[in-house]
């Protein structure tokens, strides 16, 4: 008998919006109080369900941005102009409102410190969200760990955004990197780099991955999340470089077209 067949149902829960935090012009974070939240692992997501007055329902999945260590659940939502659910979450929902969700969901694109390192995260656009949960989790655990443990779990993030203003969690990433010598955050800005920008200004490619990532011999745990074209090309390049496919975990979103 499959043990999963006897698992309890993942129940719909009523979450209350505690706070709404603007991130970029297209994204904001919903901080939610979820009674009896069973806990989650960094990288997992939830299903959100909206119900109209006549009973019509729509469901979508959103990555969890907060680490397991935080008592509230944070979802960072990108507003898609032609979306059905994200405009509601972006424009209509305010502190004090309630929202139905269930989770946590997904047991593969997850990382916790017990999985070891080095940790190499590659993200594009709002694909940063589950990667941020991993960095926040790592930071929360390592804050109380000694230097030996910290140096055994180095992390690098390579993050592609169209413009500097589109960089989600920009301040927090800078702060994390400044305060942690074992974390390196590298941006590439593909459309309009700011004046004086000396960093990468092209889509993530093999050369960039070789320069920023660890060599395959270090066996980094690699997580790639972003639009499909980015994930396809990054994952293929990582395998070409020599990383074991089983250590490269991916999460894709959006249609086959599009780009970041």
């Amino acid at each position, binding site marked *: *008998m*499959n043990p*999963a*067949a006897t*698992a*309890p*149902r*993942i129940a*719909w829960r*009523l979450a209350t919006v505690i706070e709404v935090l603007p991130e970029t012009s297209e994204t904001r974070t919903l901080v939610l109080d979820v009674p009896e939240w069973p806990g989650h692992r960094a990288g997992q997501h939830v*299903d959100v*369900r*909206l*119900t*109209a*007055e006549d*009973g*019509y*329902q*729509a*469901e*979508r*999945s959103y990555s969890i941005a907060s680490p397991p260590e935080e008592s509230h659940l944070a979802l960072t939502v990108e507003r898609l102009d032609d979306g*059905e659910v994200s405009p*509601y979450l972006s424009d*209509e929902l305010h502190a004090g*409102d*309630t*929202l*139905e969700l269930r989770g946590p*969901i*997904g*047991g*593969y*694109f997850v990382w916790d410190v017990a999985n070891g390192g080095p940790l190499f995260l590659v993200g594009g656009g709002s694909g940063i969200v589950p990667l941020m949960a991993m960095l926040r989790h790592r930071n929360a655990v390592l804050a109380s760990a000694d230097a030996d443990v910290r140096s055994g779990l180095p992390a690098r993030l390579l993050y592609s955004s169209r413009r500097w203003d589109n960089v989600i969690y920009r301040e927090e990433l800078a702060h994390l990197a400044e305060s942690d010598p074992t974390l390196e955050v590298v941006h590439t800005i593909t459309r309009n780099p700011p004046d004086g920008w000396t960093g990468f200004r092209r889509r993530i490619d093999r050369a960039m991955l070789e320069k920023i990532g660890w060599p395959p011999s270090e066996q980094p745990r690699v997580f790639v999340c972003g639009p*499909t074209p980015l994930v*396809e090309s990054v*994952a*293929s390049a*990582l*395998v070409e470089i020599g990383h074991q*496919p*089983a250590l*490269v*975990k*991916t999460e*894709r*979103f*959006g*249609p*086959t*077209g599009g780009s970041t």
Partner: protein
Amino acid sequence: MALISRGFRGRRQSAETAGRLPPGQYATRDFPVLSAGPTPRTPLAAWDFTVRAADGRSARWTWDEFTALPHQTTTKDIHCVTKWSKFDTVWEGISIDTLLSEAAAKGVTSSPHVIARCDGGYTTNLPLADVTGGKAWIAFMYDGKPLPPEHGGPARLLVPHLYFWKSAKWVRELLLMERDMPGFWESLGYHNYGDPWREQRYAGDE
């Protein structure tokens, strides 16, 4: 009892479309890509397909032998557990019925369960009854063209009446088994059977 989301209208589907959408799904015209790791790329010269019995006996086809088997074109709606559905997708492939009968002629005996094994290590489990009787194919053409690698090419399982993670990409083997055994997503919190009309997304969903 669902909470009413104040101010939410949603995007209504036409009556005809609504009847084809399982609960919690929305219709898309795109063909999103979802996979847990890098896209494997096996050259056709190295590709083969195997049907293996519980006792280890097997039937094997090279790419040329495989694609020379009688095949069919089928038009189906598909439903991904990540909520999108796509209507009227056109596939060309070999019915599992055909493969099992060819394999039976080579002494491969049937069993009540099957697990699909794929390049990249992916697996998914199905009752044999869900891949026989004209319900499932190994598809190698999509929309009149060779199936692209990111969508599972050179060949993928197609079981359109179940959530699409059951339609395993990059499939290389069907292993017949006496007992059920959970596959990749089925071991990671997803439903063991995955009927979209009963919204069996996750373990525990009825």
